[in-house]
Structures are given as C-alpha cells and as structure tokens.
C-alpha cells in the first residue's frame, strides 16, 4: 500500500504545496541577467585559457622552432658535404702516392675501384 503511494508520487497537491510554501517561503527575487554576467565575468580568464590559438599564433610558434632548426640542419649538411669532399681528396692523393711508389703507369694510378684491380692484374700477367 505504502509502495503504491510512493510510486504515485506526483506534484500538484495544492494543500500540501500551500503548506510547504507557508513553511519555507518562495525563492527571493533575483536579477538573472546580473547573475549571469557576474558568473561569465568570473569565468573570463578560464575561458580564455581554453581558447585554441589562432593560425597566426600557431604559425608564429612553429616559426620560432622551425627556422632555427632549419638553419642548424643546413649548417650541418654543409659541414658534412665539405668533410666528405676533403676525405675524397685525401683518398685520391693516397692512390696517386702509392702508384708513384710502385711505379705504376700514371694512367693506372688515375683509375680507382674495380678498374684499378683489373688494371693491376693485367699488369701482373
């Protein structure tokens, strides 16, 4: 019986409603616009912090990272290429020096790699 009443819980019993209002009173009048403005104002900085940066700010942020990184990469690449070029020169000089010591024909000394090996075998035969 009690459960049945509980399930039928509905607002709209005027006597009960009047009695409750007599006991607790209604809500006081409030300026809703002012309250909303006050809350929104208090949230201003939090909302701003959540806002994603615009494309200019994003591009600027990337530029701050990308430009120095690009310059550094270019410098390294340049230094690397220069070092490789020097190393190749040293190898060629060694080959020429060795050829001179072994009294190899200068045309063989100018060869390199596989061609040099074939030339040496041919010379031996």
């Amino acid at each position: 019986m009690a459960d049945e009443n509980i399930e039928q819980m509905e607002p709209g019993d005027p006597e009960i409603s009047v009695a409750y209002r007599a006991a607790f009173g209604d809500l006081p009048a409030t300026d809703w616009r002012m309250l909303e403005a006050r809350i929104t104002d208090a949230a201003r900085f939090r909302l701003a912090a959540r806002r994603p940066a615009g494309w200019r700010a994003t591009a600027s942020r990337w530029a701050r990272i990308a430009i120095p990184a690009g310059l550094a990469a270019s410098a390294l690449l340049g230094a690397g290429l220069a070092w490789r070029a020097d190393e190749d020169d040293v190898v060629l000089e060694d080959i020429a020096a060795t050829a001179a010591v072994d009294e190899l024909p200068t045309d063989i000394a100018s060869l390199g790699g596989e061609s040099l090996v074939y030339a040496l075998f041919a010379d031996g035969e």
Partner: protein
Amino acid sequence: MVSGTGSHASAQAAESELVGRVRQGDTEAFGELVRRYERRAFAVAYRLTGQRQDAEDMVQDAFIAALDKLDGFDAERPFGPWFFRILVNRGTSLSRALKVRATEEIPGTIGDTAPLPDRLAEHAETGERVRAAIATLSARQRLVVQLYELDGFTTAEVAGMLEIAEPTVRWTLHEARRRLRAELEIWKKERDHG
C-alpha cells in the same frame, strides 16, 4: 513516445555540442549554459543556504568549479545532474547552512502570491505546523522535500544531485506528506472546534 525520445536525444546532442564549445573557451556557449541552469541552481543553493547573497555566491562558485572540471565530464551524458552534484557538494557547510535555515523566522512576505492580511495569521500558523511536521526529518530529507515540492525537480533529478537512490527520494516524500497530512488534519479539527 518515439518523438519524445527523439526530442530528448536531440536536446542532449545540442547540449553536448554546447559543452564542447565551452571546452574550447566559447564565452557565448558558457553564457548559454549559465542561462539554462542558473535558476534551478539558485533554487538549490537557496534551499541550502537560506540567504539570497550566499546562494548567488554558491551558484557562481559551482559554475566556475564545473568549468575547471569540464575536461573530466563525459559530454555524452546530461550536464544537469553532474552540475547539480557539484553544486550540492560545494555546499560543504550543508548541515550548518540547513541549521541556519531551520532556525529562520517565517518570511514576512511569502512569494509573489502573498496572502491577504486577514489570512496571514492562518498562513503563519500553517507554516508552524508544517515546520513541526517536517522537523522530524533529517536535514537531507528536508532538502529532498524542498527540492521536489517547492522547486519542481523530479524524483530522478533529486536522487541524482544528492547521490541517493530514487526509491529513497520517493519514500522520503511519501513519509513527509504522511506526517504533514496528519498534522494538517489535527490543525483543521482544532480550528473548526475552536
């Protein structure tokens, strides 16, 4: 029935979208969320504090707290129950506030529909009777009664915001009404015989 469900789903989708915009820092969306919930939030806060200014402060505090916690909120779920739980939990001095509320005098004017002068004494006496009947309930049970009977929340909403089972809410309301009806019957008999 289907259209009702569809409309509910559509409202939920719109609210999810609104919450998503607030997450991105959209001030207009935040204002819309405030407009949607400030009145009911104020009602809850006022029932907790009993003071207009304190209630407004509590509402503001709850909205700011909700904004801070928004990233942890599942936007697919309704915002209301989650927000009202924050509001109620933020009322850390709940029992103290209710104690203050319980000792308050009857307001001089009772809402917009103030009774006629010749009925004021009767109205005040009814208020005393009701308070006496409700005084036997716990603070939280009184809050259940106020939120449902005066502020128009559903039993599910009250259960959600106070984190109690819905049958418990219904039982509380039923028990409060039973006590109240008994008290009012006694009062009516006394009045008729006196």
